[in-house]
Structure formats: structure tokens, C-alpha cells
């Protein structure tokens, strides 16, 4: 008897390949779509969800890094996002794409992390932008002055992106960090293609304005 909401062929797949140790092999999942993997994961198959994690962990990590600007925060946010996805996988109704669902969870996790950082910075009187101290490694190909200039420019870019509205920041991060096409962004965010392009245009324009206001002085 197939479980409710689970297609029959996947139910047969589950019965055919399941074993006592829960041992699935990677080759079994290669040809399955994300949606089919989620159906298997709903049947408490951890290997199916492991395949979903394997497919999307890099992109979700990139999204978190672009949204948060710090590696440690991005790692924690990606971890929390996948855990949240696994805990709520039974609520996934298949109306949206799995990538959209994961992105929404990851963006919400990033916004939660941002709020926590903000309140923490206010509590502990951190610096004005909540930007912690960073260690830059000098490049052997650049002079110290150029290295410093580059590091300062990266900091400004990070701060400028972080200052963007979340919907604009999300589009620019998906385009640059996840290297998605406009069509993929449109499908993931469930927005018209023209809206995606318009948002990206606006994001880049505002970013340019923020960067022009704070020119980097080279000593």
C-alpha cells in the first residue's frame, strides 16, 4: 500500500531497493529528480535526503555567504537550513520546486542570522556596521599598498551588498555566487523573467551608488 501522496512507482522503488541497514547506493539516485528524492525522503529514507544535500549544498552555502558575508556564519546558516528542510520535509507539498523551497528556507535562515547579529552588535556595542575584524593575507603578487586597497574594497563591496534590500540582495547573490541563469532565478523565486532582470538592474545600480559614495583612498 503506497503512502498518501507518494507515487506508486516510487513506492515500488522503495520496496525494491530498501534493505535492513537502509543501504541505498548513490547510483540509484542519479536519475531521480529532486521531487522524487523528496518523496523518498518523506518515507524516512535518509540517503535520499543526503542526495538532495549533495546536489544543493554548494549553492546554498554560496547563497548564505553572499547574504551574510562571512564564512562561519554562512556555514552555520547552511547547516541550519538543511536541518530545517529535513525536519519540515513532510510539509513539502510539491507545489513549488525543491530548489525554490530550499532557497526560501536558506534565505529565511540568513535573515534570522542577520537579526541575531544585529541585536548582538547592539548589545555588545560592536562597531557601527557590525563588521568584525578580519585578517587579510597579503598576496605575493601585489604590493602591500595594493593588497590593503583590495582588502578595503572587498570590505566596501561586502558592506554595500549587505546594505541592499533582501529581495535585491538575493537576486544579485543568486546571479553572482550561485551562477544561476535568469531563467533559473525566475523559476526558483517564482517571478517573471522581466522582474528578475529589473531587480538585478536595480540592485547593481544601487550598489554602484553605494560604492561611489565611499571611495577607497589609496595611501
Amino acid at each position: 500500500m503506497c503512502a498518501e501522496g507518494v507515487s506508486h512507482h516510487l513506492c515500488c522503488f522503495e520496496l525494491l531497493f530498501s534493505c535492513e541497514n537502509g543501504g541505498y547506493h548513490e547510483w540509484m539516485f542519479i536519475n531521480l529528480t529532486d521531487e522524487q528524492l523528496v518523496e523518498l525522503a518523506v518515507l524516512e529514507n535518509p540517503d535520499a535526503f543526503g542526495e538532495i544535500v549533495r546536489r544543493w549544498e554548494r549553492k546554498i552555502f554560496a547563497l548564505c555567504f553572499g547574504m551574510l558575508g562571512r564564512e562561519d556564519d554562512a556555514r552555520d546558516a547552511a547547516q541550519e537550513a538543511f536541518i530545517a528542510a529535513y525536519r519540515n520535509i513532510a510539509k513539502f507539498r510539491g507545489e513549488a520546486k525543491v530548489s525554490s523551497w530550499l532557497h526560501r528556507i536558506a534565505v529565511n535562515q540568513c535573515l534570522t542570522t542577520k537579526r541575531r547579529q544585529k541585536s548582538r552588535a547592539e548589545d555588545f556595542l560592536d562597531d557601527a556596521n557590525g563588521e568584525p575584524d578580519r585578517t587579510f593575507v597579503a598576496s605575493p603578487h601585489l604590493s602591500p599598498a595594493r593588497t590593503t586597497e583590495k582588502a578595503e574594497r572587498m570590505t566596501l563591496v561586502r558592506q554595500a551588498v549587505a546594505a541592499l534590500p533582501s529581495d535585491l540582495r538575493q537576486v544579485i547573490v543568486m546571479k553572482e555566487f550561485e551562477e544561476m541563469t535568469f531563467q533559473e532565478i525566475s523559476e526558483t523565486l517564482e517571478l517573471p523573467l522581466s522582474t528578475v532582470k529589473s531587480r538585478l538592474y536595480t540592485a547593481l545600480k544601487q550598489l554602484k551608488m553605494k560604492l561611489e559614495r565611499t571611495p577607497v583612498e589609496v595611501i
Partner: protein
Amino acid sequence: MLNNGNKSICKFEDVIVSYIYDESSVAERRDFESHLLECSSCTYEFASISSARYSVFEWHKEEFADLATPQIVIPYAPKKPKVIEENESIGFLDGLRGLFSGSGWPVTVAAALIICLGVGFAALTFLERGEQPIASNVIVDEPTIPSIVTQEKLPDTVRGDIATVEIPDAPNTIETSASNIMTPVREIQPVKATRKRRSNPSTQNKEVTAQTRNTETPPVAPQLRQVPVLSNYVESDDKSLRLTDLFDQELGDGG
């Protein structure tokens, strides 16, 4: 040309980002490039957007591209054991699989031991049946006579009759001695009904009957014990009634 200092009056916003990210069609690309030659505001817009895009691209390249993907650890809940309902019947194979799937090696070892013992017992039983004759094909040879038993002279044609034996002084000794008697067995061919006629079978049967009557034992005295007859039996001299004789008689009567 810009209106309000921010917005380009030219409707090339979508085309600019598509052109920057190299996702525009050939026609769009050709039209936009020809437009840039004529419109200075769009050229400025294109330059500023490209610059912003390059800043983000550089940030990605410098700080993210070389980062290793984190290892995501999902705290999977332990798998719930299957609960068998009362009315749910399980087959032999399901039970066997459930036995071996139980957690812990002692259960598995015990199950394997039981199966090995069962197979070994079955194999031994099979071998014993192959070596020994079945009970219907066996006759028991006479055991050796204990020295304390005095045997009367009995007709040779009688097998298995009771003889009267006098036990002078040791009434219980006979049981102990008889229990030590070894009864070797030997195999004989099963009896088959044949059409071979014997000469005058009715006369022979009468003789056997008469001989049997002569072997009637005298009344048993209270001090006497009964033991199995231990005579010098010779099979060739046995003229007793056999099953084959009956068959032969019937066949002879029937024609």
C-alpha cells in the same frame, strides 16, 4: 539621456543586464551595440552597471571561490522498528528475516546454531536409514544361551514359542543374564509371492500343524520362569507355514 538623474529614458534596462551577463539573444545584442554608439547616457549606464557587477564578481572570486563546501551533518532520527499488529500474520520467510535482522549478534549466532543442528540431525538420520535395514526385513538370531538355563529339546520347526525353563536357585539371575544377551541382526530379502508350486502343499501344511501341536508346553509350575526359546534353528529345515504358502494356495485354488 537620464530623467531625474537616475532613470534612463531608454528602455534598455533588461537588455543591459542580459548583455552584461551574456544572456541576450543575437538580435538583442546587435540592437544594443548599435544603440550604444548613438546614446551616451546608455553608454554611461552600461559602464556603471558593469563596474558594480565587476565589484561583486571580484568579491566572489577573492573570498568565496576557494572556500571548501562545508560538510552538512543532518541529525537523522533513528529508524522506527516495524510494529506488527496482532491480526497481521507473518510468513516463515518473514519470520526468518526478522530473526536475522534483530539487533545484536547473540540472536544471529543462536539462530545459525539452531539451523546447523537441525541440518546435522537430518543428515545423520538420513545416513542411519541408509545403513540399517528396516524392521520388517529383520529377523533376530537366537542369542547365546546362558549357562544357568536348562533348555528342553524343542522341535526345530518352532520359532518364537515359549519354552519352560527351570531355574534352580537363582530366579533373578536370568533377567540380568538375558539383558546382556546380544542379538545380532542380519538382513534378509523381503518375501515375494511367486507362482512356483510346491509339491502337495496341503500335506505339508498338515504336517506343520501336527508338529506345532506336539510343541505344546506343559503347565507352568509356580517356581518356573518363561524365557524365549533358544534353539538350534536352521532356516533350511523350517517347514512352518509362510505367507508365500498362502498366496500359492490361493493361486492354486483360483486356477
